[in-house]
């Protein structure tokens, strides 16, 4: 096994193509075969459709918002009330319906069992029920929109949320249900990863996407119940005036903020950790080089999951907490930036002396690196108290979390979608179109959100339907950027849709990945693997070779060496020094 794969077809392993009656997309048909499916891959696809629909809805709302902000008094006839509903729905849909379930529920559902060489997740029925909980929560959300709308901001801060006429109770109940969907998914993944790893896959031979998913699942299971409690208390305060959050009934609004951020800060890591997992895969696979510092990346995911529970107070520096509390939360906040920094350094180091293919997923991964680094660094200005007092609740914060959530999570989600699209659908997309979309997204994104940092510096508060004239030119730049960004994402969507009916049939391993999903066909058979595969290092690319004839990567046997190659002549004495 010394020569390349293409010249030695005898020893080459390639999954080939799947037959129609084994293809998970085609082995049964009809609406009911989807609605009642227990196949994690089909559930993942259903999630994907739901999540992308939410993303489209939330994105269109963002376009209306940016259009409205073209003029100080509002460029449209939208009233202040309607504007408040627009930004609330944009935030609530993006957070609860899109970003939180995006990577774990859609891509995670599809990938976790395949990466483990398993046939399904540990609890397939729980998996399906979590999808229907998501649908139920979404219906409540959309119902709230159709009834009286919602104008509290996605944070539901009291006492505004206990005094407004809009459908707070219905929307919070929707979020409560969505929380259960999230908990069930997390629980399922924890059990799956703990119990269903194949022979040879020790904890430190798991693909980093699984590490990230595992860390995310821990947060989902531990933090989301707090959100459930908070939302129930909020509903009780609204309906029964139990007097916990509303000062009119001797409650305290700051208590609500503590409760809310105790969930919602860890939730930030529910949103970003899976993105880290995707980027670790993308950078490594498309550089055809093992990930640099595997253990540091894996440990930093777990560190983030744990530290994320300790820093919620940095959302509340101006809320009137005691000075000591503020200082303590500032200190804790800085600790959470270290693991993220480690990851960025490791990803950049991974590219060093790699064999980098500038494919669409790699272009998105590079965009992620750039945008997430800016997002992370601007967080330092907000973690530092004296500067946060100026920047808090201004457009600086808006820009910062969009750099992290959109430049980070959404960009990596789109990159991951391109990366695993051939695996999920069995179709190759148009590479040129994909790269162009990455470029437009990158340019549009920066044009949208860089000016917002300046707006924040100058003191432009967020959630303003109208603003002072001196802020206009920056708002207009930002709006132009937003439309560009929208076009970029539209192009990405069209490229993917186009592939569905005009795309070339995807080979098993179009990018040269080494993890298990690339060992089965594209798309995988409904049972994923006939036998539980035996695995080694997920980032070993020495035996992955390009086969030009089929535009595919194939596996050869790794050259085996005896360990130790030569018997040790003089054994080291026990406890001895060398």
């Amino acid at each position, binding site marked *: 096994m010394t020569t390349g794969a293409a010249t030695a077809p005898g020893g080459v392993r390639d999954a080939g193509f799947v037959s129609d009656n084994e293809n998970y997309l085609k082995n049964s048909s009809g609406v009911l075969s989807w609605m009642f499916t227990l196949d994690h891959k089909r559930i993942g696809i259903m999630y994907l459709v739901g999540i992308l629909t939410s993303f489209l809805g939330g994105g269109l709302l963002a376009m209306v918002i940016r259009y409205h902000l073209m003029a100080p008094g509002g460029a449209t006839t939208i009233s202040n009330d309607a504007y408040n509903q627009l930004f609330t729905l944009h935030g609530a849909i993006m957070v609860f319906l899109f970003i939180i379930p995006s990577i774990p529920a859609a891509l995670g559902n599809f990938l976790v069992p395949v990466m483990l060489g398993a046939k399904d997740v540990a609890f397939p029925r729980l998996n399906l029920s979590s999808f229907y909980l998501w649908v139920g929560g979404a219906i409540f959300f959309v119902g709230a929109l159709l009834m009286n709308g919602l104008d509290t901001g996605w944070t539901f801060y009291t006492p505004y949320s206990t005094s407004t006429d809009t459908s707070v109770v219905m929307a919070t109940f929707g979020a409560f249900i969505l929380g259960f969907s999230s908990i069930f998914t997390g629980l399922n993944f924890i059990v799956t990863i703990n119990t269903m790893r194949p022979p040879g896959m020790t904890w430190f031979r798991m693909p980093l996407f699984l590490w990230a998913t595992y860390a995310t699942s821990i947060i989902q299971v531990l933090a989301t119940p707090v959100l459930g409690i908070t939302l129930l208390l909020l509903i009780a305060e609204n309906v029964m005036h139990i007097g916990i959050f509303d000062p009119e009934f001797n409650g305290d609004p700051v208590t609500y903020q503590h409760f809310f951020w105790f969930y919602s800060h860890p939730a930030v890591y529910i949103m970003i950790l899976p993105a880290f997992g995707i980027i670790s895969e993308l950078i490594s696979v498309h550089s055809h080089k093992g990930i640099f510092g595997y253990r540091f990346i894996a440990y930093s995911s777990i560190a983030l999951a744990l530290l994320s529970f300790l820093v919620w107070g940095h959302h509340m520096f*101006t809320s009137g907490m005691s000075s000591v509390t503020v200082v303590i939360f500032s200190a804790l906040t800085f600790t959470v930036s270290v693991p993220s920094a480690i990851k960025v350094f490791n990803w950049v180091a991974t590219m060093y002396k790699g064999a980098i293919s500038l494919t669409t997923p790699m272009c998105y991964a590079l965009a992620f690196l750039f945008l997430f680094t800016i997002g992370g660094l601007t967080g330092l200005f907000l973690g530092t108290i*004296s500067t946060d007092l100026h920047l808090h609740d201004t457009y600086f914060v808006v820009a910062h979390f969009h750099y992290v959530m959109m430049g980070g999570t959404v960009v990596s989600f789109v990159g991951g979608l391109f990366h695993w699209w051939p695996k999920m659908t069995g179709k190759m997309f148009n590479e040129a179109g994909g790269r162009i979309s990455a470029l437009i997204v990158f340019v549009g994104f920066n044009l949208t959100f860089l000016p917002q940092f300046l707006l924040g510096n*100058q*003191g432009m508060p967020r959630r303003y339907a109208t603003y002072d004239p001196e802020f206009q030119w920056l708002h*207009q730049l930002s709006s132009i950027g937003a439309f560009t960004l929208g076009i970029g994402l539209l192009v990405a969507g069209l490229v993917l849709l186009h592939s569905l009916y005009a795309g070339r049939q995807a080979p098993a391993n179009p990018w040269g990945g080494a993890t298990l999903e690339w060992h089965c066909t594209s798309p995988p058979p409904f049972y994923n693997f006939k036998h539980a595969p035996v695995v080694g290092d997920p980032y070993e690319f020495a035996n992955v070779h*390009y086969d030009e004839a089929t535009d595919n990567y194939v596996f050869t046997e790794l050259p085996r060496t005896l360990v130790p190659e030569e018997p040790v002549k003089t054994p080291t004495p026990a406890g001895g020094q060398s």
Partner: protein
Amino acid sequence: MFDGLFLRGSHLLADTAHHLWFPEQASTYAAESDGTYSMILWISLAFFIPLAILMVYFPIKYYQRKGGKATSRVTHHNVLEVTWTIVPCIFLVIMFVRGSWGYLDMATPPEGAKQVDLTAFKWGWSMNYGKGAIHPELHVVLNQPTKVVMRSTDVLHSFFIPAFRLKQDVVPGRYITAWFQATTPTPKVSQEEYEAALAAHEESGDEVWDYDRYQMTPDGYRYFDLFCAEYCGRDHSAMQSYVVVHETQESWDEWIRKISSRGETPLAEYGEKLYQLRNCIGCHSNEPNNILVGPTFHNLYGYERQMADGETVLADEQYIRESILDPKAKVVMGFQPQMPSFKGQLSDDDIASLIAYMKTLSDRGETASEAALDDDAAAADDADAAAAQPVEAIAN
């Protein structure tokens, strides 16, 4: 459509108070805050620029066509990784210490700071300077520490003065104190400019003074912006006020005298002024078919009102007085009991002025109550005494 973008150059010239990067530094706190900001910015750039260069350089340098092999199999390098874990930590500690230092330095107001009581409400600000001097603008004296004791009558608001780099949430059910010391005065504009602005205002027919357009307060002072930074509902973005920094105590005293009494102004005219200054206008229009959060003042006085509990009440002087001091006692059908009480904030004379103003808005204003006409004269006589002794005003 893009006029703001294209006029940017001239706009910046016209409005020197708003710099590209930061607003003017106008408090003792601002320089420290901006200094910390620059420090973080330089540290961030020191990390970002090399990273960004590598992010571009590596994909170009190590680009290979499909089928290429990586030229290194390095999987980790402990010394390197520990280094890039520890070095950032050192910088993080520096940021934390400086940021907290600056914050703790400013945490407690100094002894003898001048106190202003602030009330935030949907959607406006009211500054109580004591002795019945209440006004939406915040006026302070240069280089004099000012302590703002804040409360909210309804939901969360946030007191934000960008030029002072200061922000503090106003939480209902609590008193929260913020303080600052202004270091840059906002001078009075020249007499010609002031008169030009007054003439333009007269000509525009606007009911409310347009601060942004004239770049001065109605009294002819330059100002700093004061924003509400915590989302509070419909007119959150309009919940702005203005900070005037007087160069001398005398100038401040003079302004306080000016706002604290009606003086020779006729009742109805002063009432109209209060209607705007105390932000009645935020919830009550004075036009026939313009219903905001509360009922319109047009044709209110002298008409029968249907209450939420079914009762019918004649909107006379006593009804209006009660509605101002105890708004939840009688709620008009079709409206929410949202209005805060103005007890202690409006003197008898102020209320009389508002009633007089409402009469001018009603076609029954002249005929409905002869007694009120007599009261007018009496109230005018009592005006000065009333201004000095408002209802339950500011016992402290």
